[in-house]
């Protein structure tokens, strides 16, 4: 393996291509928006965005076997980076496809360019978090994603509900960011470094036997969890979610239910597993309890929602809970060190990663169908989809696939995602957590299936009031349905890829300056 060489004179730009491409995309979009004539801007900007993200995906393939760090260890191109970036870029492509027709429709009243530019910066922020090896990078990435998302939430600025959602999101977001930053400050103060690998080494070495130190580390840890808990919408920091999701334009909701959440989980994995992994016995119980609260509350409150966007908001809270189970299943053995042999729960993180990819396909899919319905002049309540199957059988079928997948029924991708999470919980000896996932899924069946039932078995009293053509949106829905049907069957290969994340920990060894001979290529 080509190991990192700390004596490099400058940063290795070669490692950074996927992230760099998205940055360049954002810049190009700014200029393109300024110079392309208005009547061409929709086609051009959509095309540039998709090509840009596809190029980044291509560069990602090229990056995937590099396993190295640069920029003094603050940028890391390891297995975790690659899989997280894959999730984010796939989500970005589907976000563009989902929102394109909506934007064109709205084109008279809102600037299209800004949307794509904000989206690109937000994606860039999420990519930065995924590849961060340093507290500062993580914070900058998180804030970049969040700031762009605040604006996107209130994108339809004449819509009072959108503005209300955006403002709530923004106010609470900066509150949480402050808590997160405070936690980071403690972590820095205790370890004397912002580098995750140094934090791992220093905290691990120092924590034994010093009571005040242990308490301080615990404080840092808890503050970080609270701050990031907001970003991923974990109970009790989830309250912004329904209002922001409902207020935002539906394609934006699709996007914000996935990418900022992915960024939040990326930060959590980086901070808790890579940085504070030696404390896993301290944090995994908290994560587990929060996971149960999150999935239970999300699913239970979703039962009484008639607005589908709100229902999906609570459902996304519940899915946060399932994903946290993967994190809670991570265990490092006692005895601090970077020895991979000590870690029993690596499959928990793999399960979380796979779940996030599955979630992209399920959740964007569900919102894409809602966008499709809205584009035809219907609302987004249960009554609006009543009898949809008789008037528009194909979107109804797609919606049914997404609902059933979210519920976790084989052979759809949602089943496999849940399966791996449950398996990870059981391997970590947390049977109760596995049972909680199953129970929560049982509750969720009611509101997911209710949508299907209403679409198929109720009579249609609402009809489409507009007829529009939405080719990109249709393509997006079709691709997402195929993804839901097929990716589960090929889950073994994807999980193999996600298990590469463990070299995030081995690359860390080289950054420490540890003996190069110890490094194994997993």
């Amino acid at each position, binding site marked *: 393996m080509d190991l990192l060489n700390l004596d490099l004179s400058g940063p290795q730009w070669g490692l950074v291509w996927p992230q760099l491409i998205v940055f360049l995309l954002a810049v190009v979009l700014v200029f393109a928006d300024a110079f392309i004539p208005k009547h061409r801007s929709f086609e051009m900007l959509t095309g540039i965005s998709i090509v840009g993200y596809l190029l980044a995906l291509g560069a990602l393939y090229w990056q995937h076997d590099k396993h190295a760090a640069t920029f003094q260890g603050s940028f890391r191109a390891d297995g975790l980076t690659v899989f997280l970036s894959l999730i984010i870029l796939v989500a970005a492509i589907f976000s563009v496809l989902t929102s394109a027709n909506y934007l064109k429709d709205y084109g008279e009243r809102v600037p299209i360019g800004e949307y794509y530019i904000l989206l690109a910066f937000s994606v860039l922020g999420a990519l930065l978090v995924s590849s961060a090896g340093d507290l500062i990078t993580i914070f900058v990435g998180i804030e970049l994603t969040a700031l762009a998302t605040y604006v996107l939430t209130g994108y339809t600025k004449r819509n009072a509900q959108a503005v209300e959602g955006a403002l709530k999101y923004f106010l*609470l977001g900066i509150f949480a960011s402050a808590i997160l930053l405070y936690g980071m400050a403690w972590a820095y103060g205790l370890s004397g470094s912002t580098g995750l690998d140094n934090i791992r080494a220093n905290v691990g070495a120092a924590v034994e036997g010093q009571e005040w130190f242990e308490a301080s580390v*615990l404080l840092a840890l808890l503050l970080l969890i609270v701050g990031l808990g907001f970003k991923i919408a974990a109970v009790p920091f989830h309250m912004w979610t329904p209002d922001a999701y409902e207020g935002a334009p539906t394609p934006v909701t699709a996007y914000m239910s996935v990418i900022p959440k992915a960024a939040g989980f990326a930060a959590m994995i980086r901070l808790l597993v890579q940085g504070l992994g030696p404390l896993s016995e301290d944090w995994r119980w908290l994560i587990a309890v929060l996971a149960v609260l999150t999935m239970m509350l999300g699913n239970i409150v979703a039962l009484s929602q008639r607005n589908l966007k709100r229902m999906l908001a609570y459902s996304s809270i519940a899915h946060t809970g399932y994903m946290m189970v993967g994190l809670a299943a991570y265990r490092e053995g006692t005895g601090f060190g970077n020895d991979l042999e000590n870690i029993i729960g690596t499959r928990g993180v793999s399960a979380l990663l796979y779940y996030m990819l599955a979630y992209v396909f399920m959740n964007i899919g569900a919102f894409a169908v809602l966008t499709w319905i809205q584009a035809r002049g219907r609302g987004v309540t249960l009554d609006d989809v009543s009898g949809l199957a008789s008037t528009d059988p194909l979107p109804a079928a797609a919606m049914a696939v997404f609902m059933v997948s979210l519920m976790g029924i084989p052979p759809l991708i949602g089943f496999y995602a849940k399966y791996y999470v449950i398996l990870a919980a059981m391997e970590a000896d947390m049977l109760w957590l596995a049972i909680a996932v199953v129970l929560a899924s049982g509750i969720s069946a009611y509101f997911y299936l209710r949508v299907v039932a209403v679409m198929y078995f109720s009579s249609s009293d609402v009809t489409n009031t507009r007829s529009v053509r939405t080719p990109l949106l249709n393509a997006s829905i079709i691709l997402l349905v195929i993804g839901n049907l097929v990716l589960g069957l090929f889950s*073994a290969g994807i999980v193999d890829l996600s298990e590469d994340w463990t070299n995030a920990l081995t690359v860390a060894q080289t950054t420490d300056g540890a003996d190069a001979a110890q490094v194994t290529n997993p």
Partner: protein
Amino acid sequence: MDRYLVLIPLLPLLASGFNLLVSRKYFPEKAHIFAILSVAGSFILSLLVFREIYDNEGPLHQHLWSWIASGRFHAEIGLFADQLTAVMLVMVTFVSLLVHIYSVGYMHGDASFYRFFSWLPLFVFTMLVLVLADNYLLIFFGWEGVGLCSYLLIGYYYKRRSAGNAAKKAFIVNRIGDVGFGLGIMLIFTTFGTISFAGEHGVFSELSHGDYSTKTLTAIGLLLFTGAVGKSAQFPLHVWLPDAMEGPTPVSALIHAATMVTAGIYLVARSNPIYMQAPDAMMVVAVIGAFTAFMGATIATVQNDIKRVVAYSTVSQLGYMALALGVGAWVTAIFHLVAHAFFKACLFLGSGSVIHGMHEEQDIQKMGGLRKFMPITFWTFLIASLANAGVFPFAGFWSKDEIITGAWESSIFPRFGDLLTVVALVTAFISAYYMFRLVFLTFFGKPRFDESKIHPHESPSIMTLPLVILAAVTIVFGAVGYPPDAGRFHKFLEPVFATAQHHEEAVIAETATHEEEAGETGAVAEAAEHEEGHHISNETIITFAVISTILALGGILLSWLVFMKRRIDPVAFAVDHPGLYNFLYKKWYIDEVYNAEVVFPMRRLAMYLWQIIDVKVIDGTLMGVARGFGDLSQGLRTLQTGLVRNYALAIALGMVLIIGIYFAAFSSLFR
């Protein structure tokens, strides 16, 4: 070639999907074209596979993708073709192709023509997956798939109540066997740590390296055989097969005679390394097989529905195959399987032709003299009947004879072998009798139907052509098995059962050393024969060939005396012996016993579970829980006030609570 293995099952699947989705709407009358073309393609590919394996002897392997990987458990989708697979592939695709062609004539004018030609290729797909699978789980997929297709096709005339019931019966009875098969797969996994049988780390290579307890292997063998009992209609789960005749006749020929019902035989043969180390399981297989052969044959002697006679004959012949498996005559079992597929498909298609010509009349008491109305059907039917009766030189003669000698010579349980041989010989006699009862009553004598109303006619050439081809194959197929136990067929299949053969020879060698003490010359002669590869002496073979030929001819003679010469009046005989007649006519009262002992108590239990347990206990609890969650949901949603300050308060409170609890409970600072 191994890269194209996937095409063999894929083509029929595509045809099936195409017919179901496209043909249905746009050209329902043309659906057969795609089905026939796809199956013909599979047939050609199968021949290529066969040739390649014949030339190279090495098995072909194609790994498609990993389905599930979870810990040690790996479910792969992979295709595997060795000599056994190659034989099955050619047989399945060949008979399927002929049945497809025949069905064009038979199903002509049916209201849902496209539906028939959607399910039939789907069946071929699942059957080919079953045969090509490289692990037990994929076999199970094919196994359940053929079961489903069988269900769909038995119930093809779904408007007829009896067809619906027969379909359900087939499905449910098979389910009992499938439970055993499923448990067997689980036991295989826990024992060997893999469900794949082929390859370096497959079950069979594990078996040859490791030391496994005979008890476990016997349990696996018995569980797998439970599946085979269901699918291959062995006693006591044979009851579904005769009822399955409610389906269209081509379906009976393809699924319930030639292919699907032999899946159980294939499964046991495929698992031969397991059985060779589990002699008790083999004994069960042999005894059940012999009993089924005898029982099926006796029932067939008194049935009046032409298809039912052939169906019970199938049950009986499947029993023969199981007997061959049980006595360790693996190649012979497969030989008989293939020979049977040809002549039984011919018999069924011939029956179909008769039914077609007689305007849906199936009662042989209302036929007679059809020889002159439908000559082609008659001649082909006669040839197939001779094969089924085991008359020289037709395919069935060679294979049945080998089974009998195999049972006699079986080294696995010498004492039982003699008894099984006697049963097999008696059954051979009965088989000849019932087969020719059918032939005489149907084709000879005076017409017993109203000739002014029914005008029997020969079927169109699209139906008779497959009959002729199958009859021709039946005549010549015996040749590949000559000389007995050392023919081309045996040489070709030997590598598959090589491990089994080794084991058996080891046992024989052991007996030989014992004999050496008694008489040296005999042992030396026998040892010399072992080296040549066949251990059954020519004297034995010829003796049994003569005995079974005499028995078969005797059966035919008896049937001739009874039904042609009327030396014995069958009706008077039945009246004189009502007990025996009813016992056979009512199929040994097995259905009645099941109804009284299984179905009725189950129904009572189901009623109890439904009305008391389900409605009151479970529904009551569920509704209560559901209502509870609904109320909880309503309560919790009021927390969402919509006010930012409350949200912020929740975050702050949450933070304080978490930190407080952690510090109070876990940190030693405050202790």
